[in-house]
């Protein structure tokens, strides 16, 4: 990691004017006149297979230390959450719900998969990109589309697994960055939020400030750590380790504008295909943190994945807080003056 000192110097004062709301030019507001486009992640959980390659790649690339090998017994998730030593976290959720157009209990013996593949215009030897997800209306005969059958023929409800790789959101208005007293947290030219490990003095203020529970203090080290969106790799034009390692492209990296377009068309397509639960999370610049640099396509409510349904950057209310504190300070002084007013004896 090679932290950029320019960012530190300009991060504080330049951002001070806009604590909340949409901010189209995040890097510009942080003092980068000719910033590259804002980069981010689009994590499409509908194609996540829970392999945890992202977790491993992240740990390997960033030399994040091992943080205990605990078996939780609750699911395949033994990482449990994001923290100082887990910058990617794959959530596993089992539910009694069908996944989109799946038809439980249907026997597929009469389906010729090779014929179906030929209908898609690909051959088994080299399936083209997106071969497994035909556009609606172009689904091959015999493929289920557009309908949900919540109950299988023998009456039992269906099961689905939700898997989702969580990560630092690199908020447009990042509370961790706002409250950092040392300037260790700074905004990069890519619009991401990074901790400078040689500046952080471990005050821990960023930890409760984060509305997503991402950043945390490393116990033996004392400093705060979180995802850097592989700042070192970005600097030389490489994509972050987790996105590189993702075998299904569930984690997509790129310019945020492009990712938002891609996500919008993906969620439309999923809904048309019958996955009515599909929704985007954190993509809107109008949300409480001004939009996330890393946003998600989810298949259930955010809280089911351990994400807050309506996060708000705490510093939105900071001007109001200072006002109340100033009034309280004046009240305290007035209270003292009153105490000294000599009553007539």
């Amino acid at each position, binding site marked *: 990691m090679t932290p950029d000192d320019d960012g*530190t110097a300009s991060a*504080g004062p330049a951002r*001070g004017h806009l*604590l909340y709301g949409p901010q189209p030019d995040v890097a510009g507001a942080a003092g980068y006149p000719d910033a590259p486009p804002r980069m981010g992640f689009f994590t499409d959980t509908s194609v996540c297979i829970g392999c945890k390659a992202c977790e491993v790649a992240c740990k390997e690339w960033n030399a994040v230390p091992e943080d205990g090998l605990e078996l939780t017994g*609750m699911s395949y*998730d033994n990482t449990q*959450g*994001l923290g100082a030593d887990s910058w990617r976290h794959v959530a596993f959720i089992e*539910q*009694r719900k069908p996944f989109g157009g799946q038809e439980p209990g249907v026997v597929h013996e009469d389906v010729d998969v090779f014929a179906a593949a030929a209908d898609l215009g690909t051959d088994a030897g080299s399936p083209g990109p997106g071969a497994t997800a035909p556009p609606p209306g172009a689904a091959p005969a015999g493929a289920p589309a557009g309908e949900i059958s919540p109950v299988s023929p*023998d009456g*039992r409800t269906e099961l689905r697994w939700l898997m989702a790789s969580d990560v630092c959101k690199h908020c447009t208005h990042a*509370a961790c960055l*706002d*409250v*950092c*007293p*040392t*300037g260790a947290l700074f905004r990069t030219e890519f619009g991401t939020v990074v901790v400078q490990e040689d*500046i*952080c*003095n*471990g005050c*821990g*203020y960023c*930890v*409760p*400030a984060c509305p*997503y*529970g*991402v950043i*945390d203090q*490393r116990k033996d080290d*004392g*400093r*705060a750590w979180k995802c850097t969106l592989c700042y070192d790799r970005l600097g030389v034009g490489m994509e972050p380790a987790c996105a590189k390692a993702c075998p299904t492209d569930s984690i997509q990296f790129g310019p945020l504008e492009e990712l938002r377009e891609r996500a919008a068309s993906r969620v439309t397509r999923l809904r048309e295909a019958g996955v009515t639960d599909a929704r985007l999370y954190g993509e809107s610049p109008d949300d409480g943190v001004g939009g996330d640099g890393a946003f998600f396509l989810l298949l259930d409510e955010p*809280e*089911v994945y*351990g994400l*807050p*349904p*309506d996060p708000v950057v*705490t*510093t939105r209310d*900071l001007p*109001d*807080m200072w006002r*109340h*504190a100033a009034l*309280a*300070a*004046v*009240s*305290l*002084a007035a*209270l*003292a003056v009153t*105490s*000294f007013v*000599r009553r007539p004896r």
Partner: protein
Amino acid sequence: MSGSDVTRDGVEGGRPGREAPTGARAGRRRRRRGRGEQPMVPEAEFSSYYGKPVLNKPTWKALDIAGYLYLGGLAGASSLLAAGAGLGGRPALARPAKLGAAGAISLSLVALVHDLGRPARFLNMLRVFKPTSPMSVGSWLLVGYAPLTLAAAAADVAGRYRLAGSAATAGAAVLGPAVATYTAVLLSDTAVPSWHEGYRQLPYVFAGSAATAASGLALAAAPAGQAGPARRMAALGAALELGAFRLMKGRLGLAAEPYERGRPHRLLRAAEALTAGGAALALLSGRVRDRRVALAAGAALLSGSAALRFGVFQAGVDSAEDPKYTVVPQRERLAARGR
């Protein structure tokens, strides 16, 4: 959600002990219910990820940071007492107030540095000035305030440099109220529900609590003849603290619950009793010429203020540890916006 009923002819029906429920509130049964305590509102229905918290809880050590909140308040309001006593010709009240302010702020700085993950880097706090970071503002406040209290105390004890001492006392009295109340912003400017949602009232709670602590110290250390202002400050401070805290709990909604449960509840009930009792004793100590009444009042006020800070601190940590306090109010907010 019942157990596995996987295959044709295979396993059917629930298999107890193999449940891994999610979605519905599950997995969190750790919360110890206090004896005879009733929840204020019915248990809210909400989803969570295996009952895991959404937020990462504060890593601050209670003794360091709650202790710091307390000592900062004690110092800030003591500086006000010191300045008033200096102006009003009450040297026996001014001296303990000045010494108290200097001692408390020194101890609080030790606590702050001790709580850092990298104490050797504490000077990095002064690397930048950031109005968006209450901790940065506080660090700069302390850099200005602490030397003033030390100078004021030193000049008083030495009995020399009167003018400089008076100037330092006045300067400390100007910064003192800010030192006492900015700590409320320090807590509120986080995502911790029970701290953040109370940001409108918490500065007043801390201001009142600072006044009671400082007057407690003065009552215990100054002779009754000169402690009149401290007695009045105790009564006024107690009224402000208790009133503002009641108001805050009334306005917090679900986020008030952590203040009403478990250890924070016990601490805050003790704080209420000690502060109210201490204020009553303080007023009484003006009428009966018994030193022990003033000492008891001082002890009650000092410990009441400390209990309040530790209670508020712990309630915030509790609210961060339970996803309910994060998810339910946010859900209600979304519902109110019609989404």
